[in-house]
């Protein structure tokens, strides 16, 4: 047991020495891995912010039920109870005609007009917000609600909702494509690095095998090296993304508060960070394993 520990310790030291020994090259390599990782990570963060935004804004389609001018409180209560039980609904809000008029007054250039109206021509209304991605359910609710007593007409802002959904779906597709591409890139970079390390240590591997080294002994430092590369790359990516979000937030200024209500963009939390480390370390290990397995065959049967 203690001997196995010692051998792992030595292999780990060997991997570290190898990283440190060729400092410039190792640094460049880690930079490339870090950049490769930072891109889907950045996309992930951006998408997180956008979907926060869209969830609170447009991705939730809205249905407005305009009540008949003659609708009284009983009718309103009746409609309200129907809405309460409905699965498609995220939340709803009653907008009294007086409130609607105030809103209209605030709208651009209409204050004069409203005053000229003399009386309030607007109806009471219910504004219903659907669940995210619940556009179809809301569509069904529209047809249903149009027949409810007291409802004048029901208006759905479907097209806009669908478009925003499509944009987000497109964004997800891009993240999936990008993530896969860069996952492949990470494995490829590790594979190549380890391959070239193996070629550069051809003689050492050959001689070691000739004088009694087991395959596990030869493999070990390379696997540590691959994993380490992935992990350090992940650290770099983490730093780059955190930095970029900071820069972006500052650049956006006021606009940032459009996206996030308090003007603070979403960052990577502890769970994201752990997932990133596990993924990057794992991919690095995998690239190294693939490389070692494929290339050590060449040294058979020696």
């Amino acid at each position, binding site marked *: 047991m203690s001997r196995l520990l010692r*051998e792992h310790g030595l292999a780990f030291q060997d991997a570290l020495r190898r990283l440190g020994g060729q400092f410039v090259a190792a640094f460049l390599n880690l930079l490339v891995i870090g950049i490769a990782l930072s891109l889907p990570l950045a996309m992930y963060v951006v998408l997180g912010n956008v979907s926060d935004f869209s969830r609170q804004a447009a991705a939730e389609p809205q249905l407005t039920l305009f009540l008949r001018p003659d609708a009284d409180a009983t009718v309103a209560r009746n409609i309200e109870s129907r809405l309460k039980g409905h699965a498609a609904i995220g939340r709803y809000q009653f907008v009294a005609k007086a409130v609607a008029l105030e809103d209209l007054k605030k709208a651009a250039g209409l204050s004069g007009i409203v005053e000229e109206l003399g009386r309030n021509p607007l109806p009471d209304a219910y504004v219903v917000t659907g669940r995210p991605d619940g556009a179809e359910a809301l569509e069904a609710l529209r047809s249903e609600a149009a027949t409810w007593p007291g409802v004048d007409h029901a208006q759905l802002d479907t097209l806009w909702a669908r478009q925003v959904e499509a944009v987000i779906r497109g964004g997800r597709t891009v993240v999936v494509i990008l993530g896969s591409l860069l996952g492949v890139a990470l494995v490829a970079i590790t594979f190549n690095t380890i391959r070239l390390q193996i070629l550069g240590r051809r003689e050492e591997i050959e*001689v070691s095998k000739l004088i009694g*080294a087991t395959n596990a*002994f030869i493999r070990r430092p390379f696997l540590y090296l691959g994993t380490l590369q992935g992990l350090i790359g992940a650290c770099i990516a983490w730093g780059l993304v955190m930095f970029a979000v900071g820069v972006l937030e500052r650049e956006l200024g006021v606009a940032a508060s459009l996206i996030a209500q308090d003007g603070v963009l979403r960052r990577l939390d502890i769970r994201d960070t752990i997932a990133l480390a596990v993924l990057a370390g794992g991919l690095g290990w995998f690239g190294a394993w693939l490389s070692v397995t494929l290339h050590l065959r060449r040294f058979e*049967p020696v």
Partner: protein
Amino acid sequence: MITLSGVTKRHPGGQEAVRRLDLSVARGEFVLLTGHSGAGKSTVLKLMAGIERPTEGTVTVSGQDLGTIRSGALPYLRRNLGLVFQDHKLLLDRSVFDNVALPLRIAGFPGADIGKRVRAALDRVGLLDRERGDPVTLSGGEQQRVCIARAIVHRPAVVLADEPTANLDEAYALEIVGLFRRLHEVGVTLVVSTHSPTAFGDARVREVALRQGILVRSGEARA
């Protein structure tokens, strides 16, 4: 200890480096392999170390048939061998000390032991003062002696040495021959190839001569 029976080694190119060879080396024997350049001396040594596999016939070392041995067991068998390669095979990117320490590190010796044993081995080949040096800073003959130190540092039961004196002048060659004799005296089995057998001439050494892969002369076994 080592038995070759009916061994033929044919290379992909069609060359027969060794042809129907029967040779048996007893425990504690000192065998000298001679023959012209290309006669098959290196091939015989590689067959004994499991570096080459015979096209026909069987090679047995310490009772284990190298043709059927589990590939996981081969490394442990090799740790009982000490190999001197004709082309040295020193690692140029590490010090003389680390080169000689390699078999000990691979076998998992603890750090304290390693230093002592490496220095003892370097002392036996007269290179103790060069332990911190780089192999590239050594002359051809010095490199060869480092190679010999690496082969004996882990006190193997069998030493297989391929032309260990090729780059040495007569005085050094005699020293190495003396070293091999002392190993022989403490019971190590030795198989050594050479193209200058006179330096080894001795009653306790058995000469095996090859010509174009065929055994043409074999002294009597003397354990």
